[in-house]
């Protein structure tokens, strides 16, 4: 019996199936990379968190002892609370100022284009560089920010910024605002642009003033970008390390340790790797809640 010649659709489907397994050849190396350098270390981290391993040796299984210790680790909870405070204070400043700058520069005039470029410049420089730059500006002896504040009559004499936790906190907030405000601005400009201009034009015809249009049209219609940017920014703040390591060194009296800094301190300064691993897992779980929301939001919008 002769086999029936397969129909064009069947042939095409077969051809597609034949070449679909080839997709794995392309995706495989990336999966291998993530497996070896992310997932296996993650497994090791979980295992390590249940040992008393230090950089000098050890590694006895201790069960959940490290996690119990975290429960009573005042330093960690204080660092976590400080990180949360930092995030809660900084995020609205970044989002509000970012949106204000977006409104200021969204139109396409030469002055606004220049403003946009200048506001965005600090985003591309290193956090280490900007932290050292501001460490210098804030210095009580040679810092030009202090000099400027004195010259303007705002301060009567140069202020020592890193002597109290409160002032150190604000010094970092100011420097980070300068460093990343452009990030939100650019995303918000894109958000405002994606709004159909006919809607704003119609509102103008209806006699809506500028601020009314901002409040009633632009803000509600760029809600998704606002939410996503807020999440990205908040996750970044929750993982803050460089700026505090460089500007405050966790001081004064350990009051400005962030969560990541506390983990670094335990793992690489005190060499308590097992305990540091347990801390890392707790932090990862906290971040996971935020980033899962972010990915869900991104995926939903991509599906639209």
């Amino acid at each position, binding site marked *: 019996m002769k086999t029936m010649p397969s129909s064009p659709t069947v042939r095409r489907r077969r051809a597609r199936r034949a070449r679909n397994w080839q997709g794995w050849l392309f995706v495989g*190396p990336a999966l291998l990379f993530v497996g070896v350098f992310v997932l296996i270390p*993650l497994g090791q981290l979980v295992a390590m968190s249940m040992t008393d391993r230090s950089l000098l040796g050890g590694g006895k299984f201790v069960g959940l002892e490290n996690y119990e210790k975290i429960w009573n680790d005042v330093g960690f909870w204080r660092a976590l609370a400080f990180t949360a405070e930092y995030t809660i204070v900084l995020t609205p400043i970044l989002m509000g100022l970012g949106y204000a700058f977006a409104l200021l520069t969204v*139109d396409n005039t030469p002055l606004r284009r220049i403003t946009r470029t200048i506001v965005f410049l*600090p985003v591309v420089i290193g956090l280490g560089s900007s932290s050292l730059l501001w460490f210098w500006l804030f210095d009580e002896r040679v810092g030009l920010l202090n000099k400027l504040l004195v010259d303007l009559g705002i301060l009567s004499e140069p202020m020592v910024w890193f002597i109290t936790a409160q002032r150190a906190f604000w010094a970092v907030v100011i420097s980070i605002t300068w460093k990343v405000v452009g990030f939100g601005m650019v995303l918000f400009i894109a958000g405002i642009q994606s709004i159909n201009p006919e809607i704003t034009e119609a509102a103008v015809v209806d006699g809506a003033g500028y601020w009314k249009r901002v409040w009633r049209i632009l803000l509600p219609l760029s809600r998704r970008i606002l939410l996503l940017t807020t999440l990205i920014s908040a996750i970044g703040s929750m993982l803050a*390390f460089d700026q505090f390591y460089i500007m405050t060194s966790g001081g004064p009296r350990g009051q400005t340790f962030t969560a990541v800094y506390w983990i670094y301190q335990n793992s690489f300064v005190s060499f308590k790797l097992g305990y*540091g691993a347990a801390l890392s897992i707790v932090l990862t779980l906290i971040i996971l809640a935020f980033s899962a929301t972010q990915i869900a939001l991104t995926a939903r919008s991509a599906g639209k």
Partner: protein
Amino acid sequence: MSVATLVSTARPLRVARARRIPPSAYIVAAIAVAVCAIMAAPIVLSFLASIKTTADASAAPPRYLPETVSFESYVKVLNYQAGLATYVFNSGLVALITIGACLVVAAPAGYGLARYFMRGKEIAFLILLSPIMIPYQAILTPLYLDFAKVGLVNNHLGLAIVHTILQLPFSIFLMRSSFEAIPREIEEAAIIDGCSAWTRMTKVFLPLAVPGLVTVALFAFINSWNEFLAALIFMNRETSFTVPILLVAVRTGKLGAVDWGALEASVMISIVPCLGVYLALQRYYISGLLSGAVK
């Protein structure tokens, strides 16, 4: 799209009703100028401090402008410890390997995800995005111990691997979008012409995905050049510091006294490559930022 031309196609937000310029326009312009001045000031002042003499840079109270122009501070940084050249080489090599690894791993992965319909593709994509959900700060300890065993600590490749982990989700996401944007007809034509999968990718898709590749390379460079925590942990020998770690070393200085001029000179050296690359490739940077964050 660059920051500057971001809105070139959009119509102005404020609809011009009359040719007469309202007084509010002057106020808005004044605010824009003030914002520019405030945002630019730290970099400008840092540059001015870097060309002061050592004594002038450490004068208290400080002066805004240098008394005389001097490159003393730059010369000092040039000869700092193992020498600036070593540190720039370290940072540059790590960034270069990171760029290479991101391109070599992310471009095929993005292609596979965009152009093939394998069973379990969605799960593969989620696994590839997992480094976003797991902060790299958390897995640095196990990585450090593993790398120490195989000699990848104080090693350019080792730090580049960590930087690649950081960049990979974004790179794959971006490459996938770039390949998805290429019309299917082009691919079908290539299949009919008898191109193999490999030829299709190298001869048809890669040339069309060049903007995506440039963006991936650009972000890999800037983020690797600037990365601090992993560099601090993995490059802990004086000769293997990267530039950000050098900055902290310069600050710590000798005998506790900070050499402010040298510090600002090294800050300048660390930011100039980023600013240069960004200004040259602004368009790619902004489009990458937008697609990475909101698309």
